[in-house]
């Protein structure tokens, strides 16, 4: 049922673009069985390096972007980075920082009743926030 909602949203997103006119490429990665979670991969034109992953479950719509891996954090600066992220968290509009495994992520959660325009705004803001976040904390990250 949640996967149906995701399918519906991705179909609607397919011919939309962001307020800046930037195009989107969407690919639905369906679960292996009916119990499995489906994920939509959303590529923002010109920012293909930072894909957005969208999932829907009973409680929420999640949009997630991967930022950097734990190994990219300069040695000895992990605590400082954490402090900055935690402090920034409130002031970043609509998005929040988190971790999945060893990956730092930025994500936004929406009500499962959200419509396609809510999702579009989320994608636009999340994409901007992801870029800005990397720029902001780049002093804590290794070059390679």
């Amino acid at each position, binding site marked *: 049922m949640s996967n149906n909602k995701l399918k519906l949203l991705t179909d609607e997103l397919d011919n939309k673009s962001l307020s800046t006119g930037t195009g989107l490429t969407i690919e639905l990665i369906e679960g292996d069985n009916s119990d499995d979670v489906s*994920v939509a991969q959303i590529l923002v034109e010109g920012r293909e*390096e930072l*894909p957005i992953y969208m999932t829907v479950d009973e409680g929420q719509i999640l949009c997630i972007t991967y930022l950097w*891996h734990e190994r990219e954090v300069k040695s000895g600066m992990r605590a400082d980075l954490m402090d900055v992220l935690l402090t920034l968290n409130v002031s970043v509009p609509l998005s929040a920082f988190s971790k999945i495994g060893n*990956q730092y992520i930025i994500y936004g959660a929406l009500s499962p009743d959200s419509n396609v325009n809510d999702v579009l705004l989320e994608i636009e803001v999340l994409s901007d926030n992801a*870029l800005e976040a*990397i720029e902001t904390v780049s002093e804590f990250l290794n070059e390679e």
Partner: protein
Amino acid sequence: MNILKKLISAIRGGANEVGEAVVDTQAIRILEQEMRDARTELDKAKTSLTEIMAEKMGIERKVTELGKSIAEHEGYVEKALEKGDEALALEVAEKIADSENELMIQQGILDGYANKVENLKHLINTTERNMKAMEREISIVKTTEKVQKANEMASAKFSGSDSSLRSAKESLERITQRQRKREDQTKAAMDLDIETGDQALESKLEQAGILADKTSASAVLARIKAKK
């Protein structure tokens, strides 16, 4: 242990593994088993709630009947007294006293049942809420696992080998370069627009004879000769 703690250990357990799995699937399976157990318990609680409510209704009926019977017999006592039959009045009064004692006992049982029903309803509500929260958490863990897999797949497909090793800074660099290039192109296109616009205006002015013709060699020669 609360649900969040269990989830954290499930996620950490997964992250510490050598493989790419984010979630300790074994831990999730255990959580799901616990959910199933909780659901069985919940079903049991619901069944006993129905039973208790049925029993409570039976006792409510008894209490009403006793109340009616007492009122009815009080009428009989009055009538017996009106007729001056003291002995009959006393006999009926004894029956009323018995009924009143029985009513007290039944009322006590009824109150007890009402309490039980309240408690059970509360328990069922809380359990249902907890289970919903637990379901949500498990769903989130499964979701993040799926997203992780999708990201690995995508980065492998996206730009070939070593792509998953590409750093955030490199990505940022590529994206901003691309943006700058696009901005430059836009600016160049705009400049070109303005230039061609200017040219078009100039030639119109020339044609109209407002702007002087382009300097020609003969004009230069004529000017220099004139200076002498």
